[in-house]
């Protein structure tokens, strides 16, 4: 029992060691451009956590990352790599925006859920083709989803600029140009902020913070993800297929069917990624709608090791890094790109460390098993990258 505990500790420690390693590399990069790393990191922390509104901004920033992280993770669990979150959430956001401005006169309790469902539907729709191509035609989902990301960028551009652009933007005559964007969503589709709820607990957030109920939805989704993957028969099939498709097939599970369900589910969750920004912050979709949540989601899932708690913490980490990046850019003149480098190094070091650690643990367990099989079975080893292959 003691030994098992030690291994668990090692597995939990490995991401932290990896983050530390990435922080050191980041420090080197800062030294190259003549900045004091201690000063930079200190500014990052102070800027991010000293004020309540800044913490709330980080929580707002982590909301989309939880969704995209969960979407990637559920794919990983089935042995699928969904790099298409990026396109899936753009399509989802578009459909949600469409339902948000086109439908009028609905009460909020119908309109808002409907808009959210449209977002999930859009993500699912865009996830359908790659998984169909994989299961039926053997096309690797990594290539097809990347191609569909590019297709979605052009498609969204077309839909916003050429088809649905809002031509009636209230501009003073002769002043400025209209933004290339969709019409604003109806008030009944707006996701309320958490301000009035939080003020019950004496937490008063200023108006420039957009923390909204999607955060709660994201956290609930993480809990739901846990139950689905670890507590239901479907979750069992999912993990079995992810671990060893051939083995699962022998056990009577159809990998193709599981792939389909898992990938569509991944797309549906991905479809929620852009909604916090759409329904609570911008209120419309334009050509500059935030991109890149999908790619950060991959990092979030990897660092969170596809576990619900890990994903939430990793989303927090990345939201903090983004927030901190703004701080260091403004106050110590370190370009935000330093933080992107930091993120890239972090992913690499995390996968290396967890792979090395996982192998070490497996070896130790093998040794133990060889040393006269003790009372308890060693149990199923959780491969460090079990979900990824």
């Amino acid at each position, binding site marked *: 029992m003691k030994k098992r505990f030690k291994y668990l500790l090692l597995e939990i420690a490995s991401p932290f060691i990896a983050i530390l390693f990435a922080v050191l590399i980041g420090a080197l*990069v800062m030294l*190259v*451009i003549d900045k004091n790393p201690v000063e930079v990191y200190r500014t990052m922390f102070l800027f991010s956590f000293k004020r309540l509104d800044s913490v709330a901004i980080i929580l707002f920033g982590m909301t989309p990352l939880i969704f995209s992280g969960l979407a990637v993770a559920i794919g990983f669990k089935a042995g699928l*790599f969904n*790099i298409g979150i990026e396109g899936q959430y753009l399509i989802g956001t578009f459909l949600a925006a469409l339902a948000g401005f086109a439908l009028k006169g609905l009460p909020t309790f119908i309109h808002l859920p409907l808009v959210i469902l449209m977002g999930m539907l859009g993500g699912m729709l865009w996830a359908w*083709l790659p998984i169909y*191509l994989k299961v039926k*035609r*053997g*096309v*690797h989902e*990594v*290539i*097809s989803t*990347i*191609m*569909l990301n*590019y*297709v979605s960028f*052009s*498609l969204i*551009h*077309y839909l916003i*600029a*050429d088809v649905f652009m809002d031509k009636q933007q209230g501009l003073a005559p002769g002043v400025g140009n209209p933004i290339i964007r969709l019409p604003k969503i109806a008030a009944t589709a707006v996701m309320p902020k958490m301000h009035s709820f939080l003020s019950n607990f004496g937490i008063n957030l200023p108006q420039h913070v957009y923390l909204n109920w999607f955060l709660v939805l994201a956290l609930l989704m993480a809990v739901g993800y846990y139950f689905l993957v670890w507590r239901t028969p479907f979750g069992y099939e999912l993990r079995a297929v992810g671990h060893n498709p051939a083995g699962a097939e022998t056990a009577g599970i159809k990998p193709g069917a599981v792939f389909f369900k898992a990938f569509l589910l991944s797309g549906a969750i991905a479809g929620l990624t852009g909604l916090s920004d759409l329904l609570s912050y911008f209120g419309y979709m334009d050509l500059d709608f935030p991109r890149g949540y999908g*790619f950060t989601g*991959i*990092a979030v899932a*990897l660092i969170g090791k596809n576990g619900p708690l890990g994903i939430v913490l990793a989303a927090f980490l990345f939201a903090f890094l983004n927030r901190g990046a703004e701080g260091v850019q403004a106050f110590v003149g370190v*370009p935000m*790109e*330093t*933080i*992107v*480098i930091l*993120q*890239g*190094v972090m*992913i*690499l070091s995390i*996968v*290396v460390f967890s*792979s*090395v650690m996982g*192998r070490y643990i497996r070896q130790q367990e093998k040794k133990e098993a060889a040393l006269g099989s003790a009372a308890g079975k060693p149990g199923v080893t959780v491969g460090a*990258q079990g979900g*990824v*292959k």
Partner: protein
Amino acid sequence: MDLSELLASAIRMSIPILLAALGAVYSERSGVVNIGLEGMMITGSFWAAVGAYHYGPLAGILFAIMAASLMALIHAVVSVTFRVDQIVSGVALNILAYGAARFASIALFQRATMSPHVDGFKHWNIPLLDQVAFLKPLVTNLSPVIVLAFLLVPFSHWVIQRTVFGLRLRSVGENPLAADTLGINVYPLRYAGVLISGVLAGLAGAYLAIEHTGMYVEGMTQGKGYIALAAMIFGNWSPFGAMGASLLFGFAESLSFRVVEGGAIPYQFIKMIPYVLTLVVLAGVLRKATPPAAGGIPYERSGE
């Protein structure tokens, strides 16, 4: 607009895809999936601009190759030595390359998204053939890199099929355990495969920056690294096949420029052509394709 001009433009468009696809052949034949090609191309295109801006085009090529090889080295260390999932490593590399290029661009050019104009090589005309009117667009004003890229195709075929190195490279991609048993050291060969792909992806990026565009622009690779992977698959993991597929993709891209001039179809749909074509091609051919048997699987010596 006549046919030979369209073909000439198709050839120019296909070069970065061809170079990267050739790189992918080496890497995949050794058993390592290299989805980091895109990142290596980004790195190559940026450092080519740096080298060419300060010391001329040849330096640009060298800078690009060195920088992209460094990225390839990271990929090899992570995925071969540490046996991390190759696709995960490649994706991380792409994120890293994007951030690093922006960062370095700010540091060296004071702006994140582009470099100043850089001069390319002096372009060549092929003597005699350039007298034939029909061939003129095809054989005049050629970048030396284009010539090099096409020479690399038969050369790569020879290396992979006819040399001891090629035989060993293929053997560790097909059955590393058997190769190991015969005394072939798997890891150095896989390193070689990945590093060669880095060199070629760097060259591809350099071509884009200094020969095709005359500057570095952020996002100028536009997924060509991924398309190159698809071209390599379509070309059935062989240099000549990769060349055929790259020409097809290059043709699609150059065609898309011509259609824009027409203007009947919204240009956003024209821009989708290379990507949709990639999907169609993969969906249509993959059934009969035969990837290296051990592709994508990290090799672990037993008893380690």
